[in-house]
């Protein structure tokens, strides 16, 4: 849709948006929110909180798609709300907004992110340094195959959209999930990380990368166009090599 078409669509639509917010599992609240040009889903939620119901809880920080705080379910799919234009998700002038899937709800649209970040640590998706401040800085070859793999996944903003999109997480609460495994994969390929065995061990556990069914929702919904599914496939390959005595390095 070009800008002219978009403006016409906006003008032709109703001047208010019918907003349904899932505040509890069985409690929905309805709001009529004025429609504006250049209005994001986060703008709509903020309008409700500032003008209709100040008790509405939600989470945001940067508003420019960097901090990963504002992800919510929008018409049933996870999205970064600060960078999602409401005109793109409206269904007959209406939208339903709920808390992220696969995470415990604290209140309204704010979920508890602890399980998500606990799994980053459980996947050894943490830096394993081997040098001290007195050592020279390790050289990074930007053209090496490993660095290309690492670079492909490092722009993750920890928004948990992939985790909410993942049907394997929904059916298997122990599963570490796409974001944590993708970070483990980038570190495995990072010349400055020396935790290879710790990472391969962590992602081979009962909640590890082998639970992934390659359904691809993580890659389909990642707002930064990252590809966690392929990163997890990389972990499967590396751990499979590790399985054989002659494949260990």
């Amino acid at each position, binding site marked *: 849709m070009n800008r002219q078409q978009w403006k016409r669509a906006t003008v032709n639509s109703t001047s208010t948006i019918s907003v349904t917010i899932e505040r509890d599992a069985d409690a929905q609240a309805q709001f009529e929110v004025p429609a504006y040009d250049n209005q994001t889903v986060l703008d709509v939620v903020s309008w409700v909180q500032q003008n209709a119901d100040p008790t509405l809880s939600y989470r945001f920080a940067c508003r420019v798609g960097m901090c990963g705080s504002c992800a919510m379910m929008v018409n049933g799919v996870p999205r970064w709300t600060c960078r999602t234009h409401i005109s793109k998700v409206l269904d007959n002038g209406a939208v339903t907004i709920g808390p992220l899937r696969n995470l415990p709800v604290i209140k309204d649209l704010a979920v508890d992110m602890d399980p998500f970040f606990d799994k980053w640590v459980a996947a050894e998706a943490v830096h394993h340094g081997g040098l001290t401040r007195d050592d020279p800085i390790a050289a990074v070859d930007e053209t090496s195959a490993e660095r290309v793999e690492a670079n492909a996944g490092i722009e993750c903003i920890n928004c948990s959209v992939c985790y909410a999109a993942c049907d*394997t997480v929904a*059916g298997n609460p122990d*599963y570490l999930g796409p974001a944590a495994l993708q970070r483990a994969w980038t570190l495995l390929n990072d010349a400055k990380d020396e935790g290879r065995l710790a990472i391969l061990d962590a992602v*081979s556990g*009962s*909640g590890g990368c*082998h*639970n992934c069914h390659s359904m691809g929702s993580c890659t389909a919904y990642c707002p930064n166009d990252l590809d966690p599914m392929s990163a997890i496939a990389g972990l499967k390959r590396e751990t*499979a090599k590790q*399985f054989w005595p002659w494949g260990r390095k």
Partner: protein
Amino acid sequence: MISLRLYMLQRISALLMAPFVIGHLAVMIYAIQGGLSAAEILGRTQGSLLWFLFYGGFVVAVSVHGAIGLRTVAYEWGGLKGNALEAFMWAIGAGLLIMGMNAVWGVTYAVGPLGGPGG
């Protein structure tokens, strides 16, 4: 909820099944050209080590592969956990193995009640 060992066993059994499935389909298509009676089939499989190894290997691969796959389904969709989950996997694997090997034995080495082909 799946270990690297089960994952590898499932992949290796899948790798083995690929030629078994293709071989089985090719034989089925070839064998029924112009019609083939049970006696004619048994005449070829009776006492044949090759067919015993082919279908015996197939059955082993299916038992391993199917049991691990159904274990995952039982966990993710059925909520089975712990020992019940492992018991479920072993029961499926053992069931497939016993029934499959029974059939393979029946068309290769079993002796029927009248001394002829068993089954």
